[in-house]
């Protein structure tokens, strides 16, 4: 006796969250059944392995049929075929677009192209995430990227509107899209200590302050050539950043800056002497990062540079985070007292964001 056909269709589509998770994690039906058996479900319910097998198959089939709709979540809301309560719809979408930290760290900042897709095999082996799950996550990134790529308006809002994700997840996707678009290098060994959260935090700051959308002018003319987009850094701004060079190139200005900072921080900093000794190096590092951002290559290396030029020196001198904060605050604020320096607004736009990023990046 073999089962040829075995289906269950409810007027309300049954969704088993545990099975959904197993499906999303890319397990085959067989593996999923084995995992469910191990969870002790048979003992709890008194079911047999055959029942479990049939149940799992059924759920997998349902998910497979729903997957097409999940690729465009608004479709899931409007379709008539599967009657699913709104809370469950939200859950299906949210889980489908959720991703693994380990996976996202591998592809963050990489081009979401076919070439990267080939690397998924390696990522799967490295992270222990099934290839199927890697594919889903990668395809999600790519799909979201494709949809919002050419769109105007807030990146987070666009993601949310087209994929109906929770606020948190939409922000994460905004970060992923932003990183993929600007191709920030995140895979270097010295960046390994950073989590996705660290990068997402920085991405958000940068989107808010360094992109065209960040200027905050609603485009009066819808056909204006200025792209109102959160995806790309504001080219003009990057160009302007060259003006900051004077802060380190002008010896007097540099000395003045240093003395202002030192006066303000004397006695307040545990690592005052180290700071005093390193001031010029640190300042040079931070300003040089700014001035180089006109080159795409250097944009990509932004995080590498920040870690090399700032995080690592401070860390080797054992600066506590509170001291870093004090220093950065003072360092950016003191510039306002430099009479010879005329680019205060530019400096604030640059340093405000950079300060936030550096503080986030500064940990072990």
């Amino acid at each position, binding site marked *: *006796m*073999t*089962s*040829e*056909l*075995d*289906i*269950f269709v*409810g*007027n*309300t*589509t*049954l969704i*088993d*969250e*545990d099975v959904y998770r197993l499906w999303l994690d890319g397990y085959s039906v067989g593996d999923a059944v084995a995992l469910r058996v191990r969870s002790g*479900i048979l003992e*709890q*319910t*008194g*079911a*047999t392995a*055959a*029942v*479990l097998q049939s*149940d799992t*198959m*059924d759920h997998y*089939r*349902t998910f*497979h*049929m729903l997957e097409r709709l999940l690729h465009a979540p608004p*479709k899931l*809301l*409007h*379709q*008539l*075929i*599967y*009657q699913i*309560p*709104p*809370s469950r*719809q*939200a*859950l299906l979408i*949210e889980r489908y677009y959720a991703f693994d930290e380990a996976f996202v760290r591998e592809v963050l900042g990489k081009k979401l192209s076919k070439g990267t897709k080939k690397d998924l095999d390696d990522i799967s082996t490295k992270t222990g995430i099934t290839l199927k799950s890697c594919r889903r996550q990668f395809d999600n990134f790519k799909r979201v990227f494709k949809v919002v790529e050419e769109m*105007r*308006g*807030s990146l*987070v*809002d666009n993601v*949310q*509107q087209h994929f109906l*994700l*929770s*606020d948190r997840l939409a922000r994460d996707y905004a970060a992923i899209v932003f990183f993929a678009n600007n191709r920030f290098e995140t895979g270097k060994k010295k960046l390994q200590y950073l989590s996705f959260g660290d990068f997402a935090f920085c991405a958000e700051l940068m989107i808010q302050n360094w992109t065209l959308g960040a200027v*905050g002018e*609603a485009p009066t003319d819808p056909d204006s050539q200025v792209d*109102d987009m959160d995806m790309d850094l504001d080219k003009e701004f990057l160009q302007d950043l060259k003006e900051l060079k004077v802060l380190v190139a002008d010896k007097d200005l540099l000395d003045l800056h240093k003395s202002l900072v030192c006066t303000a921080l004397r006695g307040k900093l545990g690592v005052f002497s180290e700071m005093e000794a390193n001031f010029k190096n640190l300042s040079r590092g931070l300003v040089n990062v700014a001035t180089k951002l006109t080159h795409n290559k250097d944009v990509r290396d932004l995080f590498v540079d920040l870690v090399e030029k700032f995080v690592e020196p401070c860390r080797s001198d054992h600066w506590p985070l509170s001291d870093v904060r004090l220093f950065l605050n003072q360092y950016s604020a003191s510039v306002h007292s430099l009479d010879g320096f005329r680019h205060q607004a530019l400096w604030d736009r640059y340093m405000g964001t950079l300060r936030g990023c550096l503080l986030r990046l500064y940990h072990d």
Partner: protein
Amino acid sequence: MPGKLKVKIVAGRHLPVMDRASDLTDAFVEVKFGNTTFKTDVYPKSLNPQWNSEWFKFEVDDEDLQDEPLQITVLDHDTYSANDAIGKVYIDIDPLLYSEAATVISGWFPIYDTIHGIRGEINVVVKVDLFNDLNRFRQSSCGVKFFCTTSIPKCYRAVIIHGFVEELVVNEDPEYQWIDRIRTPRASNEARQRLISLMSGELQRKIGLKVLEMRGNAVVGYLQCFDLEGESGLVVRAIGTACTLDKLSSPAAFLPACNSPSKEMKESPLVHPPSHGCRSTHNSPIHTATGSRLTQNFSVSVPTLIYTGMGSGSAGKEGGPFKALLRQQTQSALEQREFPFFTLTAFPPGFLVHVGGVVSARSVKLLDRIHNPDEPETRDAWWAEIRQEIKSHAKALGCHAVVGYSESTSICEEVCILSASGTAAVLNPRFLQDGTVEGCLEQRLEENLPAGCGFCHIPYDELNMPFPAHLTYCYNCRKQKVPDVLFTTIDLPTDATVIGKGCLIQARLCRLKKKAQAEANATAISNLLPFMEYEVHTQLMNKLKLKGMNALFGLRIQITVGENMLMGLASATGVYLAALPTPGGIQIAGKTPNDGSYEQHISHMQKKINDTIAKNKELYEINPPEISEEIIGSPIPEPRQRSRLLRSQSESSDEVTELDLSHGKKDAFVLEIDDTDAMEDVHSLLTDVPPPSGFYSCNTEIMPGINNWTSEIQMFTSVRVIRLSSLNLTNHALNKNFNDLCENLLKSLYFKLRSMIPCCLCHVNFTVSLPEDELIQVTVTAVAITFDKNQALQTTKAHVEKSLQRASTDNEELLQFPLELCSDSLPSHPFPPAKATSVDYSSFADRCSSWIELIKLKAQTIRRGSIKTTVTVEKTSPMGEGNFRNRSAAPCANSTVGVVKMTPLSFIPGAKITKYLGIINMFFIRETTSLREEGGVSGFLHAFIAEVFAMVRAHVAALGGNAVVSYIMKQCVFMENPNKNQAQCLINVSGDAVVFARESELEVVSTQQPAANCQPACTGGEVTT
């Protein structure tokens, strides 16, 4: 020119890409009714076209309005080649033809293609202007209401129940016409769908005419079936019960399940035991203004005849010959009728007087080509024959009527088994006559069977019993005789006294048969049938005893014929009726008493059986009050504690002969057997596993012994097909396979629905078919309904404990969300549901819906053009989300797709049906030539059934309804050809579209607010304890 049909095509959405080059579609729509066709403009290059057409007007006869479906075809315009069809929508406009139902059909309909399934949706508005036509010779029957529900619909009352109506129409099956060889499968399927739609419209109209002739205005318990006879044609037949219904202005108690039968009712004159005198209760002159309330399309004047059969004082003296008198009375009411049959399974109180037992008849026919479709005499004659037989069986049981009547067929090649079954009964004539007493509902307070046992009393003469039965005095009233077991096809009467809970009981049986042709085949089958009936009954009886119960309700025996085997599947709901004696146990004895080890084995088995009975009694809470054995003045011997029947295998066949064949009334299958046929049978008895704790199941409308339903329901269809290994099949192996198939299927259902515990599977409906030599297909449709274990508002403490316990141990449970859809659950639960595990759930659900809410809001703001403004607020302050949560509770109405509930029951727990919108009767064919690509047979059928559900829901929603009651999947014919990568499936479903309102919504609205507010506080409290 009595009608004008108006159609407007508004828009389409989610259309498929028809032009690969542009990834777009140039869609237009053809609207066809009868022979008239209109077209919309082409809406170029869009997957979401906005046609917004003018009103297309069809001026048609109402006859056509009834017969024809409205056909809407969506096409892709192609300049150079023929236009490609995207798909079709058939709309049955019948619901618009009677005044009380829907007034407009408007909504999104899935566009359906027989090859590709659902391909997008189309928004259509349909209206009908009917002109009055008083022509008496017209052929239409507009205005007659149809209900699938097999009881009087909830917001009506029965003025008169006229009786049986039947009709059948035949045609050639387009699939078997010569043209089918040259046309495409799509054209062929569509021809078939169109024809069946047309035929069922015609059938309904003809039935309606018969109803009008009988001066009724409605058909209740309407059951329409298709017989796909293959080359010999296509038969569409229907049966129903004609009634005169009256709309209730404010429906009274609507939920039979929740009503305790403990209303103080006075005794009825008609059903009172004869030892008491009878007195009248309804001597008031009777006048119902039925005529004026009928729909305007026809007029019937109901003569105000007064039924005075039991007039005041007159009958009081004649208690003794009462039964005879009653019979006589009713006889006269029924004798004009050819067939005193009723398709109802539940009745107005007082309608059912006595129940005799199940009557059934089967006949095996050889199909031949229907030569003249306009005169389908043969098929008519076949059914008339069977009905005649049923009628005579009922007579033999001393009954003049048959209730819970149904008909079915099973076809294999050119052999067809016609079956009919019902429950012989004695009815109260009052409802059957013109000009009944005023308001049955008012009347019913005065009618009562003595504490719900009257229907158990035997209607037949005890000295001239039609079959061997053991009679005792009724355990309830002790005045009348009752049989020791009672089998019926009806639902448990609401006023019946039941002890404990009921359970689903199934008998399953296979018999191998030689492959044969024509007459030889038919003969072989008819020879096997009695044996199968006998065994099915034996199994039912044994299982019933094993459960410690004494009555079966909703019995449905299905015999299916295949190439090389016959299958029998009987389902019923077992209960313990307080009026009937305690069932005896099962005793087994060996055939070779001198064999010691065998003896031991036997006694071991015996012990197991006794244990099972004891366990079942506990499980189903059957603990009848101890009855002193000396029944006062009983001339009948005491009920046997144990019905004992020793038998050897060799004897068994003799016994069969004696019971079945030599009896002379072999089809009056009220068999009385205490017997186990063979060891295997005993084993198979014991393999039936009871449902896991927290689960109950029954095949009737409501579960005896459970009455505190909560509002969560889940209707489902499950299909399984197994392939038998063809090697040395024996009856025994076959039985085991079939038994396992059914048991495993039930187990799977229990597992799948475990998140609903405590819950009951109601109206479990199994259908067996044998699509091919070695394939067995079982289709189950049922509804799972949750109930509150702790009556009503009992102790929140238990909740707390439960939730704590679950929260700590049972992650999975915690994650199972109730299936209730948000739109009706939000306002309707002033208190958290019984399983208060949903602490997490509710907050999560809130979160989820607030996301969606939030997203929608944002989408709006973005559309308005102000970018970035709202975002910062929401990002920074948590207030934003809080606000949204408050909002999300209110406008659930803007949820994009309305929820439509479906249930095979005639009611919706916790809700009140406020309006019946009309019958839903849909037929779909789906075919594929890429079976593997669609996920194999399972993927194909799964998708198709989901699509069928979706189309039913869409039609109901377009009628303005929010539920389908009395839903039934009448046919699910699945054929596959894996070698060719092809499969085909036909599905026929029906039900009643209704509008329902939650009880809580009907209550004072103002109470909701404080209750809702207290909810978070309550749950919070529970968590902290």
